[in-house]
């Protein structure tokens, strides 16, 4: 039997194994986790002819540099990603969203995500990773999931299994569109804020700060002052919730968020805008727009149809 593996020459900034996420453990403090940008995660696995919940390697900003040892294998990268393969001292350039054949001793260098945050590496096979509570998604806070709950580390070996025969090219043309307007639905504590504060909230741009990660996005902009109470009795959160801290700054909860929180919730990002929201890098500006539940549901249906169309167009 052949042994196939990657050796991590450079781990990248925040490289973790992820799948569809971990359901049904919020009540003991374990967040959903899973791939941040679900559409790009699905595309990666579909191009690899994998099951939709197969583990992928997610990276942020700068990705990993991996040396490959083993039989020829198909791989693909999704997102807006700059990467190359170094083969016998030659640099080879490739595009995202197509299967590429990796040969023994090749070096895959994922240089950066372009004006975005997350990208995905999928293989025609399976990364050999640990599962915890039915998911391999890495949660670095609770130290659970693949890689003992840690980010990728320099020098480590990633074993691969179930290597498939070389896959068809499976290419799609897909451009990751950017958004600046984030659509939200009113939260349960909307009335904790004065009319003026609400006008400031919807009328101004907010900066995405560097204090943003898989847990949440911290925003800076006009202070949103509170007329009732800056704290509430702690209660459940979901991804996309926008809390206003005691300092008057909004924080948006993302996939690794704390499961309960004690700040008032001014709104919740609609499901259809989540994949694009997480891809907006620090330093960018965003603006909020309020819509109602019915419209949010319709927009999500359209977003889902678009994803399914992309999947069926993979050739």
């Amino acid at each position: 039997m052949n042994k196939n593996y990657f050796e991590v020459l450079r781990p990248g900034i925040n490289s973790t194994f992820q799948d569809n996420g971990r359901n049904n453990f919020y009540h003991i403090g374990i967040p959903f986790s899973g791939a941040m940008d679900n559409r790009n995660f699905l595309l990666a696995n579909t191009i690899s002819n994998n099951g939709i919940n197969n583990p992928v390697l997610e990276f942020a900003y700068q990705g990993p540099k991996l040396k490959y040892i083993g039989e020829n294998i198909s791989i693909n990268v999704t997102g807006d990603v700059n990467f190359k393969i170094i083969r016998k001292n030659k640099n080879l350039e490739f595009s995202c969203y197509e299967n590429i054949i990796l040969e023994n001793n090749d070096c895959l260098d994922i240089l950066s995500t372009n004006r975005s945050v997350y990208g995905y590496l999928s293989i025609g096979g399976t990364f050999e990773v640990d599962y915890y509570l039915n998911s391999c998604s890495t949660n670095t806070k609770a130290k659970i999931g693949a890689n003992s709950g840690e980010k990728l580390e320099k020098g480590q070996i990633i074993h691969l299994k179930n290597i498939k025969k070389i896959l068809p090219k499976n290419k799609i043309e897909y451009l990751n569109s950017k958004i600046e307007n984030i659509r939200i639905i009113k939260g349960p504590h909307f009335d904790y804020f004065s009319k003026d504060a609400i006008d400031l909230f919807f009328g101004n741009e907010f900066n995405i700060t560097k204090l943003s990660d898989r847990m949440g996005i911290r925003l800076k902009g006009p202070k949103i002052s509170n007329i009732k109470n800056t704290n509430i009795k702690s209660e459940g959160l979901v991804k996309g919730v926008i809390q206003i801290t005691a300092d008057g700054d909004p924080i948006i909860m993302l996939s690794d968020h704390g499961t309960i929180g004690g700040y008032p919730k001014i709104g919740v990002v609609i499901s259809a805008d989540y994949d694009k929201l997480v891809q907006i890098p620090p330093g960018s500006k965003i603006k909020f727009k309020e819509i109602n539940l019915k419209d949010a549901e319709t927009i999500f249906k359209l977003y889902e149809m678009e994803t399914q169309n992309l999947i069926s167009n993979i050739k």
Partner: protein
Amino acid sequence: MIKNISNLGDAALYCDFGPEVNKEINRNVINYFNNLRDSNFLGITNITPSYNKLVISFDLKLTSFAKLKKQVENLELKKNYNSKNNLIKIPVCCAEEFALDIKRLQKLLKINEAKIYETFFSKNYYCYMTGFIAGMPFLGDMDKSLFAKRLETPRVKVPKNSIGITEQFCNIYTFESPGGWNIIGKTPVDIFDNKKNTEPNLINPGDTISFYPISKLEYEKKYE
């Protein structure tokens, strides 16, 4: 009973059990939580009980707010889960190096150290909810004489297994984490065991906790 169900975004239900925080209301929340878990309604991805709310998140591809709301409203509470709550005993070492805020508390509460501990250890505590970080239990109620505000500036790192108190509640930091609660001791028991693949958390909502003091020597023994 649920007083009102509204939507939290487009993929969650926000069930309100009324404004008060007390055991009776919380037991009701937890009873709903457990019965909902048994119900297997299509599309539910998470249910989070807290003091007086229940947040139910769902997969928008499989169900919708209107559909799930109707199911929750018509939920029959088949089983009463309030009868089988565990009593869990947790040892606490109050050595100086672990009781990071005991000096502050003496000043703040105007009671001496011995009395603070005597009062703290004399009561049983009820687990309202677990979460924020994995397995962290929110316990209450503290004796009124021990009601203390959070630290003005939260600690960047509270050591794992620290016991903290604030207002009517106490908790156990299951992982090293930022936090602003007043730290009065440390337990050698891991409340959340991330090596265990089933029931990794020792304390569940609805359980009763009694703390008991141990010496530094006993603490070190338990750690071996």
